[in-house]
């Protein structure tokens, strides 16, 4: 970054909102994937959209790369700065500009924290549905970049399904607006909202976002069933689906995961089970009660040797606490492990589990399985002992094979954390050369200088792909779970 760029920046920002000293830049050098660190050339802290627009235009004119940053909680290195590039911190644009409960919409700035929206609209019996585990701190701008989701996304979708309209500044400084306050969003003409959401910050910066709000469910009903083999639990999921019910959440854990979870929080899981299935219904009270009666029937027929229903909110919380601490508990079984996040078609879960079983034997490593049976999102936890020479490499190789398997089975290399820095080398395993070329061309058509979030998502020869090593400590605490 040269002097004239700094001078131009200074004409946009007062001194206290343009960070240039080492001591101020250092804390920005990583997001939640600390394996990567790069000190940015400078950090700008805009407080309104005009400043953002001016900044992006300046970057475009002077060909300086920039990275937008919300709260820096990306787990894939998405908000890792660019050396000699500008970091644009959006956390001060945190105003909820409008709430219209009767239209069930809210208009927000990009730095608004996900949970703050629900807190602001709760009084109207509404909530903002996408619920990543990081919702107490991650921003809507970051959610948009990764199309973030959470536990309850099968029924109502991820971030993309809840954005109706947005105003953005594209990487070349062009400001544009699409979508509307209508539930139809764009409605007429190509759905640009759908294109922008999930673009990992490569297209530009979202300036103002119109969100859809949902009515808070009247009732939740949760049941837990134990099986003497994994296949049976899988079959039970098929039976639930075949019965025509649409649960809000369906989760399976295998024996190792159950054992660990039980040891950690004492959720009351049956220890002799090979597999545990949790199914939750949500919605209008009368309907949910009726559906639950049906669900009970299905589960009773499914060959479970033990069935337990949550009788109140406390019991429901306990069941979920167990599920959410499953990873943590696995930490009790092994000093180190790798968490993987891949997707397979739900009907091929069985196949995937068999394959993981084979890999496990082949590599002589233990693998615990926790997965969202509802959407085929797998979380194999590969256990190893980091002090044994070569163990980590072996575990990483196994993790890589699991990702490859997900692609082979027609699934995906990431369910929700995005590609970022972490998985960029894997992107071509999912897309054909033509598809890769088209995505690259699209990026260049929007950002000819490739200044927006340069180096992310697309593979590059410079840095090797990196695995997240071991479970996230928050997972270990049972506070978060990867949905």
């Amino acid at each position, binding site marked *: 970054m040269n002097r004239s760029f700094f001078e131009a920046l200074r004409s946009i920002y007062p001194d206290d909102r343009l960070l240039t000293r080492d001591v101020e830049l*250092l*804390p920005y050098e990583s997001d939640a994937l600390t394996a990567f660190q790069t000190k940015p050339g400078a950090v700008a802290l805009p407080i309104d959209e005009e400043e953002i627009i001016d900044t992006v235009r300046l970057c475009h004119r002077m060909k300086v790369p920039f990275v937008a940053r919300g709260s820096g909680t990306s787990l894939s290195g998405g908000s890792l700065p660019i050396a000699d590039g500008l970091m644009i911190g959006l956390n001060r644009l945190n105003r909820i500009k409008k709430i219209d409960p009767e239209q069930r919409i809210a208009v927000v700035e990009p730095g608004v*924290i996900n949970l703050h929206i629900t807190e602001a609209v709760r009084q109207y019996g509404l909530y903002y549905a996408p619920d990543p585990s*990081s919702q107490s701190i991650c921003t809507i701008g970051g959610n948009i970049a990764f199309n973030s989701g959470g536990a309850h996304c099968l029924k109502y979708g991820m971030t993309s399904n809840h954005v109706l309209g947005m105003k953005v500044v594209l990487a070349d400084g062009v400001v544009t607006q699409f979508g509307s306050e209508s539930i139809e969003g764009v409605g007429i003409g190509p759905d640009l909202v759908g294109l922008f959401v999930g673009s990992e910050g490569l297209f530009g910066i979202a300036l103002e976002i119109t969100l859809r709000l949902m009515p808070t469910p009247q009732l939740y009903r949760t049941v837990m069933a134990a099986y003497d083999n994994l296949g049976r639990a899988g079959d039970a999921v098929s039976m639930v689906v075949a019965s025509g019910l649409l649960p809000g959440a369906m989760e399976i854990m295998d024996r190792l995961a159950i054992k660990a979870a039980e040891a950690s929080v004492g959720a009351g899981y049956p220890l002799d089970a090979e597999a545990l299935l949790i199914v939750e219904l949500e919605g209008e009270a009368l309907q949910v009660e009726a559906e639950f009666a049906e669900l009970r029937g299905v589960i009773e027929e499914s060959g479970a040797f033990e069935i337990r229903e949550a009788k109140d909110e406390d019991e429901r919380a306990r069941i979920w606490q167990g599920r959410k601490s499953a990873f943590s508990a696995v930490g009790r079984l092994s000093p180190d492990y790798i968490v993987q996040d891949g997707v397979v078609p739900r009907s091929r879960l069985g196949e995937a589990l068999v394959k993981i079983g084979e890999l496990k034997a082949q590599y002589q490593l233990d693998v615990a399985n926790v997965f969202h049976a509802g959407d085929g999102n797998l979380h194999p936890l590969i256990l190893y002992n980091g002090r044994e020479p070569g163990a980590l490499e072996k575990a990483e190789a196994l993790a890589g094979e699991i990702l490859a398997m997900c692609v082979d089975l027609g699934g995906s290399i990431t369910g929700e954390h995005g590609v970022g820095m972490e998985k960029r080398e894997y992107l071509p395993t999912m897309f054909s050369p033509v598809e890769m070329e088209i995505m690259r061309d699209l990026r260049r058509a929007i950002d000819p200088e490739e200044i927006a979030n340069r180096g992310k998502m697309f593979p590059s020869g410079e840095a090797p792909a990196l695995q997240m090593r071991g479970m*996230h400590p928050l997972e270990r*605490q049972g*506070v978060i779970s990867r949905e």
Partner: protein
Amino acid sequence: MRHQIKSDDLRAPEMAEAIEKCVHCGFCLAACPTYKLLGEEMDSPRGRIYLMKGVLEDRIEADEAQPFIDRCLGCMACVPACPSGVAYGDLLVSYRTLQEQSRQRPLMDGVARRLIIETLPYPRRFRLAMKSGKIGRMLQPFLPEAFASMLNMLPDKLPPPSPLPPILPAQGERRGKVALLSGCVQQALAPQINLAAARVLSANGVEVHIPAGQSCCGSILLHIGAESEARQIARRNFPLMPDDIDAIITTAAGCGSGMKDYELLFKGQTDLHKASDFSSKVKDFSAYLAGLGLREPRGFAAERAVAYQDACHLLHAQGLQSEPRSLLNQVPNLRLVDIPDAGICCGSAGTYNLDQPAIAEELGGQKAGAILAAGPDTVVSGNIGCITQIRKHLDLQGKNLPVMHIAELLWAAYQS
């Protein structure tokens, strides 16, 4: 986070452990008042940890990082918010102490600091200094802002010294025996608090000993990183406490959490066992009383709407949230009202008013607004700093509500 911290300091292992545990997830940001106010990574817990790491790894100069560390309220809101169990408080105290040893403060700042060290912990000196107004006059030209804020904090006139009785007998069936700490500034500024606390305890069947000759517990000095001074005066209290007591009661939140950290302060000292013995007995007034079970007071003739403002050092550092509220809820004719965002620091935070007046002002103003929104007729808290800060900011907003210590309100409930 991985780190490259050399372990040549006694404190390094603790600091390294806290840093290692931090995974840079940012969950703590949502809880931090300075992050909320300033919106910069350096003014967040995650950022401060990263900066301390940077200093310890010799990547940046300590002086450069210091302003951001100084802006930390020490309110500990980030501690319960952290799912990874990072002991931010230990890290901060260790770090401050380490830096203090090698730090060159700007001249006037150093003078003010000396002043704090020399006067605040000693009730008599503090009284004298304030009475003469000499210090204020002497330093005002150099430190207008910091002192304006300190002088603002003071009542117009200090109350007359009111010596506490050495022993208050238990009334009715004896249910316990405790010692009451009557340390530093609080005793000079508001002697009625400890008196009320002693009376409430006695009314609850507790025999209260108030050993003479007590000094400050050292917490306030620890807070600004004056470790050896803190140790020196802390020691003076050890031999004063009777042996057969159930608890050492404090009515000052910051002192309570500071004394709980004596193990860290006395690490490597020969009298470590005495310190930890002492520290294990320390209990906040409300925690002890709630544990004992309140004898129902008479209550109030007319309904009182009371707002309880959490002191950071009770809520975040000691996890006391339901205890004081349950005490208040047992008072007939007392209606508890909720302050929105009660867990956010009021900006008093020990000597923070003195060190960071601008942020303290802002937080104080916000807090007063939040309290008023709850619509109470009385405000209580468990800490003198918070009480003074809240009173000041309510006054600034033209609202003259009574603001008192929870012990005072309880005593009033027994009397009426």
